[in-house]
């Protein structure tokens, strides 16, 4: 064969992180370390009401009692939580009315990222809430949304302006003491997005947040809260990138989705944090807690394309509390070089006639380890619960690993659960078939990987699907044309 695995390996190794650049923006950064004073300082900087400060302090109390989880199939040097700066905000922080007022350097950053705000504004009709180093800098399309009664703003703004909603829902799906990282996030979260869709409203555009870790030595702890009131619909996009840096950066986010009766939330993520260089140095630790709650007839659909981060620890989950509610999880996780990913989902069936679908595609290359870890739980009162899970892994090269840890717990006799998993490599006969038809090996691999991921790519909103496809190509460049 013209194209050997040796060549593939070499190409993958020499492939550099395209989004690795550092924008020199003055930042307002708190001293490193974590204690009650820091938390109070964060809260004060954000001009938060007292209940929020207390809420944070309580979370911090729980966090101190907790231990860092070790059950995941990932190995890394534990971050030193006392050497992280828990707050870093772009310094010149006017209250923008229009994009023109935004720091031109910041805009330049976005341009390099290819998500130029104004371009997106015009072309895609996407409202973007950008979180750069923890502070939401620009929120566009606010007015159009406001006409429909939709609230889309940064979480700190929401705390000030819509305290009743935040107070009611924050921590209701991911409690403060849920896990180590969720507790940490609850204590120190610096910003994030808030979204409320009123009763019966179908959000006219895709809402989008773009995260980016910029400042060295900062952890990003953003908090997202999406509430879809009865009968409403929203599609929410989230994308993440980080400049390349030698030390590991920590990212511990919490995302809470609440879908009330008959509501539907579609949450899509494209994650492209810096994965570390080819020696496995640097990269982002991505320890995220994402969970959604479905009331009656509600539907939550998670779609994720995970190509970045040195270590990923992420399980977007659905609690199917209401009768007839639906949970979906579509995932592509690509690991290369020394990346490690332990990702999957939890589907907790509590209500009657609840349904869930899990489609997970893992692609491992280089020396990476890629794990699917999932839980399907059917409780004793969840009559007629239905689940279908499929996890497929594709291995490229013989130094990587693919792992599957599906937990299935059924306590109701009417439950119907199917799980299937396969592991394979790209077949020589498949490549031969393409070669024979004049498609070179590189293109053939691209074709096959694309086909392998199609089921999930199809679930992404159009603009995102294009970007995701591009990312897949970058991540596996050399193997994918």
């Amino acid at each position, binding site marked *: 064969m013209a194209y050997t695995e040796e060549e593939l390996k070499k190409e993958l190794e020499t492939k550099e992180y395209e989004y690795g650049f550092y924008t020199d923006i003055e930042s307002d950064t708190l001293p490193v370390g974590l204690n009650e004073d820091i938390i109070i300082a964060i809260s004060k900087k954000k001009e938060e009401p007292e209940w929020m400060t207390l809420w944070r302090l309580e979370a911090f109390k729980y966090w101190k009692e907790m231990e860092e989880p070790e059950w995941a199939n990932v190995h890394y040097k534990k971050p030193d939580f006392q050497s992280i700066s828990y707050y870093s905000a772009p310094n010149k922080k006017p209250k923008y009315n229009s994009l023109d007022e935004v720091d031109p350097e910041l805009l330049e950053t976005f341009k390099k990222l290819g998500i130029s705000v104004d371009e997106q504004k015009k072309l895609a009709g996407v409202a973007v809430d950008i979180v750069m180093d923890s502070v939401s800098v620009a929120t566009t399309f606010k007015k159009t949304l406001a006409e429909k009664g939709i609230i889309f703003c940064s979480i700190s703004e929401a705390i000030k302006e819509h305290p009743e909603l935040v107070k009611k829902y924050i921590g209701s799906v991911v409690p403060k003491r849920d896990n180590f990282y969720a507790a940490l996030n609850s204590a120190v979260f610096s910003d994030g997005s808030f979204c409320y869709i009123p009763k019966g409203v179908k959000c006219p555009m895709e809402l989008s947040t773009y995260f980016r870790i910029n400042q060295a030595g900062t952890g990003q702890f953003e908090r997202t809260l999406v509430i879809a009131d009865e009968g409403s619909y929203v599609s929410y996009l989230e994308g993440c990138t980080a400049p390349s840096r030698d030390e590991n950066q920590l990212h511990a986010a919490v995302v809470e989705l609440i879908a009330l009766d008959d509501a539907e939330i579609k949450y899509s993520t494209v994650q492209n944090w810096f994965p570390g260089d080819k020696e496995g140095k640097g990269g982002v630790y991505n320890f995220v807690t994402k969970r959604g709650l479905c009331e009656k007839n509600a539907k939550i659909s998670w779609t994720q394309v995970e190509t970045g981060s040195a270590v990923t620890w992420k399980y977007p989950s659905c609690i199917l509390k209401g009768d007839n509610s639906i949970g979906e999880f579509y995932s592509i996780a690509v690991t290369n070089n020394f990346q490690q990913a332990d990702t999957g989902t939890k589907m907790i069936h509590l209500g009657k006639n609840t349904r869930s679908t899990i489609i997970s595609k893992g692609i491992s290359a280089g020396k990476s380890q890629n794990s699917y870890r999932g839980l399907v739980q059917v409780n004793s009162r969840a009559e007629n619960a239905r689940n279908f899970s499929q996890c497929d892994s594709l*291995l490229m090269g013989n130094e990587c690993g693919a792992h599957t840890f599906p937990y299935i717990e059924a306590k109701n006799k009417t439950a119907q659960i199917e799980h299937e998993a*396969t592991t394979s490599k790209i077949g020589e006969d498949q490549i031969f078939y393409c070669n024979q038809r004049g498609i070179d090996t590189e293109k053939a691999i691209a074709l096959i990987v694309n086909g392998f991921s199609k089921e999930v790519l199809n679930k992404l909103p159009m603009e995102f699907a294009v970007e995701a496809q591009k990312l897949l190509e970058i991540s596996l460049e050399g193997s994918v044309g």
Partner: protein
Amino acid sequence: MAFESNVDIEHPVHDLRTEAMKNFELKGFPSKKEEAWKYTSLNSLQKIDFSIFPKEENALEYKEVKKYFLHEIDSYKIVFIDGIYSSYLSETTHDGVDICLMSSALTKPMYRPVIDVYFNKIASKDESLTTLNTAFSREGAYIYIPKNKMPKKPVEIIHFSTGNEASLLLQPRNLIIAEENAELQVIERHQSLTSNEVLTNSVTEIFAADNAIVDYYKIQNDAENASLIDNTYIDQKSKSAVSVHTFSFGGKLTRNNLNFYQNGQHVDSTMKGVTILGNKQHVDHHTLVHHIEPNCESHQDYKGIYGENATGVFNGKIIVDKIAQKTNAFQQNNNLLVSDKATINTKPQLEIFADDVKCSHGCTIGQLDEDALFYLQSRGIPKKEARALLMYAFANNVLASVRIPEVKARINKLIAKKLGVNLGFDL
């Protein structure tokens, strides 16, 4: 502890035992906090004050226990009553092959070369219950099949507990070696005869050399006061084929730790199981297949039917090492939940480090097909029988690979009995 007086310090494996004891003292009984014991709690067993060494020898009449033997065919028999060998009920041999006792294999110098090479070599040295067995086991079956030999008939290993002790802890230890081209069939059974508590913590080591064939059948149909922790370790060399069939119908708490290590190429490993439970029974199947060398295959197929308050656990783990290219590993776990209070927890797990492999696992939890049930009923088959027929069919493909027809017939009868029906045809 008062164990010392019962332990022979001069014993050749004394050092192994001391080591094992140290490990157990360090680890203690596994708790639910450990991933491997997440779904099975040993708390209820730890509350019972088990006697470890039976005080007296007990005898049984053959006619009392005949039904527990595979009496339709002739077989070698190694029978233990309350952990003590019963020469009266047994039939051992040294005619070309050794089918005898662990205690004599451990003490007689002529077996020393074999013991040195094999004893405690594949059994885990840090899994706490296995080391507990290594520390205290005194008796069990010893089977050695030399090169190119095959015993004339299958071997039955049966453990009876008489209930003369209020609660008894048994720790049998079996060592089974099939040398090159050897072939062997073993049927193992644990049977408690009264309603007194019994806990068996058994360890079996099986070594299959090049081209050896070993079929092992575990019939777990004990009384519902008996608990069993069955640890089996299998070492396979090139082109060997080992199959283990586990039929779990009885017992209070059963935990099967079945571990296959493929230390050769072109190895074939098969593990199959039928589990049918009711009441408050709990069965936990933990399988591990470690593909260490290239070009090997493994096949797993476990079927479970859970009624009443029963709990079933399946945890199947397949590890494919980096050099184990061209591995074919298949795993299938199908479950029927027939009661609202029954629970099934399953975790089919793959850990793959090689790229040129075919690995798949499938897992389902479901109910009987209403249409199929209706079809049978419309043809005059009563509902209960129709259900039983469907359940029987559900479990049937596991039975297809049973190579001793009498064992198959016996299992069929046990299934019919467990399902509470007479299917009206000779199963």
